[in-house]
């Protein structure tokens, strides 16, 4: 596709997540780009909350090498 081409002619689909949709769309002849995406921590809300608490900017326990 060149930059000047119209998008009007045929549907083009970007699919995020389940590859099942891609297969169905491709089967129907639609141009489709699959983006592999999964929710963080597999969608587990408890782990997601723990991860949120372990953000890079969070204070850690102490200085490196400090006896604990």
């Amino acid at each position, binding site marked *: 596709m060149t930059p000047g081409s119209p998008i009007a002619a045929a549907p083009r689909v970007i699919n995020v997540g389940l590859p099942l949709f891609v297969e169905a769309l491709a089967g129907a002849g639609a141009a489709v780009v699959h983006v592999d995406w*999964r929710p963080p*921590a597999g969608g587990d809300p408890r782990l997601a909350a*723990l991860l949120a608490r*372990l953000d890079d900017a969070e204070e850690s326990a102490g200085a490196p090498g400090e006896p604990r």
Partner: protein
Amino acid sequence: MTIGEANREALRRVQASTARLTGVALARDVVPGAGDHVVLHAGPPITWERMCGPQRGAVIGACLFEGWAKSADDAIGLAASGALGFDPCHHHRAVGPMAGIVTPSMAVFVVENAAFGTVAHATIHMGLGRVLRMGAYDESVLEKLDFMNRRLAPLLDAAIRRAGGVDLKSTSAQALGMGDEVHNRNKAATALLIRALAPHVAAAGGPDVERAFDFMTTNESFYLPLSMAAAKAALDAAASIAGSTMVTAMARNGTDVGIRVSGTGDRWFTAPAPRVRGVYFPGFGPDDANPDMGDSAITETAGLGAFAMAAAPAIVQFVGGSADLALQTTLDMYEITLGEHEAYKIPALDFRGTPVGIDVRKVVETGITPAINTGIAHKEPGVGQIGAGLTNMAMECFVQAVEYLGGGLRELGGGLRPPSETFPQQQDAPAKPALERGP
């Protein structure tokens, strides 16, 4: 210090680590805690009762080699009576491939990380076929152990000292440019090492020179213990940085797999050892396979092995899969690591550094677990290697680590307490007296 800063420091230490092979010595003389009736093994802590077949076989072989038992039955009795002190190699500045057994009369390579003052040890690689690390313990194994540890070791020590040591970091870096990932493929590194040591082995002289050359030149994995020890010395330098979520060890004992994380000190997060998918030697199949085993995943922890697989496309012939698998494995590992290695570069990725510094948060967040290239041992002791393949660390280990780190921050209001029963690494680590550790 924030978690981000802690991780940057941990990664910096791994990157800035050096690795120099300085000699070969008996474990009893250099490995802290290696003494009478002490048996160091691969992976996280385990009791004799829970040990898998090949690891038990290797323990039997070690008892026979040490003269602690006269027969296999004697050795089993000894182990079952609680007279042996079992402890992970990882607690003693050591790493062992597969069963990973280290006892005091075994010779170990000494690898020094001068940048941070750490040191790590690993036994001499025994080659293929019937070998101790796969749980074999017959006469041929004992004869080979005798040669390696009593004849080859002093010769190698003299040669290494005469050479003024060998720079393993640069050897590994060069080997990566030659198709090795220095875990399952060590062909280039071994050839480079032999070429570098040959003049000094020859000059050391004596009656064992010819067999020494035969031994080294017929074993393409001769370099593996050095790769492992170099990785261990680098990762130990990055251990125990409060708050860091970087993995400092991944190890398996054939029953459990475990990881250690910089910010949680010496604590292990463990899960049952997974099966290995791979290619089997003729006559063997998945039913014969022991679950994953060995400390060699320390190479992956340091950004080598499966993490550097794009540098070693030939390995897919060995572990199964298409040529793309090598590239894709490395690309996936960038998703869960903190950085790219400054010394270890991959020509096929236009000299991009290997992915290094596994972040437990990224593993849990992405659902991508670290890949490991590995050999497959038969589940019965003494049969040996029956294949090779690719496996992944168990997600459960990383979930536990995140829970511990996240929970620790909440409960302690930002402070984190390591488990009190462990001791810091790279300080003297005497094994507990054997009799106190019995069942």
